[in-house]
């Protein structure tokens, strides 16, 4: 038996797939907030975030499918792929929980995405650079929105401070994975194609620390150990239940079976 999908076959495809999967899964999580937000304005904000991320997912997965060159499409990659072939980070697949946890994740991940797209906007791959340039504008807004809400919740009431702090505390264990840099990623980075994840850490820490300080929040300490890696198809249990919903219709009435959607 062959061990699971190894990423060194076609690493640039894997890299772009990972970018697309982060956007797709986080977009799905944001879409869960629809009509459940704390007020109408935040319902609208949540749908903006979902729309931006799903739009990025569509561009990135379309490109990934082309890079793979096996005739798959962005929809095929989204709706008909096994969980173990998803390459998103564990952070984005975690449940929304309350608005405090969601805000903490949004801040942590949008700073990360911002820094990553910023580098990718200068990628030697023109297509990726173009996608990243467009996404960078959107994510810059996400980062600002998240920072404002972190500061508002941190400085609002005792309860809101406690809830958003809890968000950072429980999600902190997913931080090391954001900066895991596998050999083939390093290699792509050296060719000017990708951003080496570890190269983003210092700027991420600095930006986050500054916002947390302004928000009267404590930056969690310690560094959790990685318990599995997205590059090997490892995920938390939450991806599986997310995919049950995400993929149900295509799995049931697949386009390949003649369905038209």
């Amino acid at each position: 038996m062959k061990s699971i999908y190894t990423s060194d076959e076609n690493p640039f495809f894997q890299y772009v797939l990972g970018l697309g999967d982060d956007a797709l899964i986080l977009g799905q999580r944001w879409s869960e907030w629809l009509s459940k937000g704390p007020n109408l304005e935040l319902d609208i904000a949540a749908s903006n975030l979902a729309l931006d991320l799903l739009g990025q997912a569509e561009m990135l997965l379309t490109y990934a499918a082309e890079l793979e060159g096996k005739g798959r499409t962005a929809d095929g990659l989204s709706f008909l792929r096994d969980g173990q072939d998803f390459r998103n980070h564990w952070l984005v697949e975690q449940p929304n929980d309350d608005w405090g946890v969601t805000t903490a994740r949004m801040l942590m991940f949008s700073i990360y995405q911002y820094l990553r797209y910023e580098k990718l906007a200068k990628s030697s791959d023109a297509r990726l650079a173009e996608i990243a340039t467009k996404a960078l504008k959107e994510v810059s807004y996400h980062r600002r929105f998240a920072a404002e809400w972190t500061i508002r919740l941190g400085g609002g009431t005792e309860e809101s401070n406690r809830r958003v702090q809890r968000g950072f505390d429980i999600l902190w264990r997913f931080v090391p994975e954001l900066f895991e840099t596998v050999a083939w990623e390093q290699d792509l980075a050296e060719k000017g194609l990708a951003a080496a994840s570890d190269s983003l850490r210092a700027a991420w820490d600095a930006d986050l620390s500054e916002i947390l300080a302004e928000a009267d929040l404590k930056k969690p300490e310690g560094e959790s150990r990685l318990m599995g890696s997205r590059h090997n198809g490892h995920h938390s249990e939450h991806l599986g239940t997310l995919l049950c919903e995400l993929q149900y219709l295509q799995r049931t009435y697949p386009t390949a079976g003649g369905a038209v959607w």
Partner: protein
Amino acid sequence: EAGEAEFQARIDADEFIEPKDFMPEAYRKTLVRQMSQHAHSEIVGMLPEGGWVTRAPTLKRKIILVAKVQDEAGHGLYIYSAAETLGTSREEMVSQLHSGKAKYSTIFNYPTTSWADVCTIGWLVDGAAITNQIPLCRCSYGPYARAMIRVCKEESFHMRQGYEGLLQMVKGTDEQRRMVQDSFDRWFWPSLMMFGPPDSDSAHSSQNMAWKIKRFSNDELRQRFVDATVPQAEFLGITLPEQVVWNEERGHYDYGDLDWDEFWAVVRGDGACSANRMDARNKALDDGAWVREAATAFAEKQRSRATMIAAE
């Protein structure tokens, strides 16, 4: 008395009434009730479709649906704002919805059980809403009329998207065509009831007509909707109920009697999803209370800091 006569004369002259203008209390009250009910319908209307966003079958459909639900939140916002110009705050209107005192469109108490339903809601429910609302773009109260122009424009976009979604589905498999037919069978009659009780039973109508916050009767609008919908359904290959037949003499489609007992049962809260809709709204409101409080507290702290700095 003089004020009322002048008021009516302005309306008769097709002038818009603006927030600071004189208006009879009954006019104000009727409008607040109608507009807040309309806004509530937008908000509750997010729920049946919102439940399908996570299950949309393609990225394109998912994006379209998120944008549509977002538009509904936006409509809710405009209409609440327009209603606030009459002196009732959004908080008060929302709390009347959540206490069950205020109503919303009965259509949203029907279950959305397939992807075809998502498209059918766009086609029939938004379609019926537009038929109702286009005349309101010329209603006598300025802020409402202006809100309706924007709302109608977006809703006619939603209606086309919903119809287009069904057009795709009927090109697919037998299972998909069956889903479309089933969806039509469940939504057609309730969408006709969206126009309200038959003219013979309709309260307030003549006063509202005189005030130009209603410009056509329920039955007139219903007929207009049926006449537009039947050919669209036929184009999709849908089998229409046998009661729906072309009446050469009238130049309209007949559609028989509607089940008004069902309508009134749903109004009373017996709809299949009535309890779920209110539970979902109340849960969102309760779960979000601490966020809204935090935002208020933070804004106050910012204000008092600004005041202190100004005072130094």
